[in-house]
């Protein structure tokens, strides 16, 4: 078994790609996946990648967890005798695999078309024709604008960006906003306090405002788990 893998070792584009491969390789029916078997095969592959020090995307582990969960659910006997209504725990995974396979095939089909600059070429020399009439129309899209603006901002780093952002909002104003929000909701998560298109300056000002409110004992805050949301409460 492992000998086979050694020969065929491929880098898969993702966990779904790997699963599809395992299903085909083992001649399995995608509509009736033997979940224990496939889970085992999947984990063997991950293990091998680990041995080879190949770094796998975190999504591979997510699907591993999903497989184990499905496996567990299939082992638990249905307590309620409603077999007809009970959903097959594999259903979502099967649908995802079918969907992925469909697009994978679509991609192969797309790739097999005569591609410009790969299989076919347009005229190489640009013909200059005098343009004396004013062009009545425009060829650009929103992305052109966004990209142009971003490169301008990149060029105008540091000072200039701060200068433009500062005038958007002040700490005092932020304090008022926050107190108003908490006054209504009693508690809010920190990240919901940021405006929709927040900048680094917005984060700084929001944090300054919160620190000020904490110092004045108008708020208290906690975080229930590492990296979890930070909650702010009105101080009773």
């Amino acid at each position: 078994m492992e000998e086979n893998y050694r020969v065929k070792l491929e880098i898969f584009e993702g966990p779904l790609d790997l699963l599809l491969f395992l299903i085909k390789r083992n001649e399995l029916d995608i509509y009736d996946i033997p979940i224990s078997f496939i889970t085992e095969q999947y984990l063997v592959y991950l293990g091998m990648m680990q041995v080879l020090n190949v770094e796998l995307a975190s999504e591979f582990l997510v699907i591993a967890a999903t497989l184990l969960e499905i496996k567990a659910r299939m082992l638990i006997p249905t307590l309620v005798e409603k077999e007809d209504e009970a959903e097959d725990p594999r259903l979502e995974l099967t649908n995802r695999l079918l969907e992925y396979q469909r697009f994978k095939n679509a991609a192969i089909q797309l790739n097999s078309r005569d591609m410009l600059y790969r299989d076919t070429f347009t005229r190489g020399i640009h013909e200059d024709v005098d343009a004396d009439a004013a062009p009545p129309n425009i060829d650009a899209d929103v992305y052109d604008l966004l990209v142009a603006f971003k490169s301008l901002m990149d060029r105008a780093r540091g000072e200039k960006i701060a200068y433009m952002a500062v005038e958007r909002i002040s700490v005092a104003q932020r304090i008022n906003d926050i107190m108003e929000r908490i006054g209504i909701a009693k508690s809010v998560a920190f990240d919901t306090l940021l405006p929709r298109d927040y900048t680094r300056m917005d984060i700084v000002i929001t944090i300054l405002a919160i620190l000020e409110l904490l110092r004045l004992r108008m708020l208290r805050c906690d975080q229930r788990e590492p990296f979890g949301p930070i909650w702010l409460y009105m101080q009773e």
Partner: protein
Amino acid sequence: MEKDRLIAIIEALIFASDRPLKTKYIEQVLSIVDLGDITIDGLMEALRTRYGTDSAGIELVEVAEGWQFRTRPQLSDWVKRLNIVKPAKLSMPAVETLSIVAYRQPVTHAEIDYVRGVDSGGVIKTLLDRRLIKIVGKKELPGRPLVYGTTQEFLEVFGLKDISALPSLQDIKQIGSAEEELERDQAELPLAANKPGEGPDDEE
């Protein structure tokens, strides 16, 4: 005006244009001419036939709702020997992502990730940079995520007349599986795409 001269004009117009030339612009240029009972469609057909012979090195193709001259794909190896520097090939993840955008547009980053099972941020960036996809708006969802669609350039690169010229996903399911087997170079494998009850040998 004589038909031959009209065809020559259209040939020159398409040739001078750097991007595929839409029929409506040909019509507008010729709008000062009394065509009589000649139709633009008829002229296009005549021109296409002229370039349709095997001995031509150039062909007239209809892409992105317009007309363009291109080298015949059969001659690509010869043209490549000229070493004209052009955009590199697309990677398989890129083509995969592109096909999801093409068939599902308008589609969000998260939807693409879900279908592919991996984060597609880098690939989306590449496709945007190569102008094969573009931002077409925002979705009315929390966070107002951006939605993507394919571009004019996409149609040009893949030689599609318009987006509806893509084969339907259902058709692909049958054709694609066989090709995939070839690509993977594992002819001994059965096709998982087969539905239960379908024979394993009907696609070889």
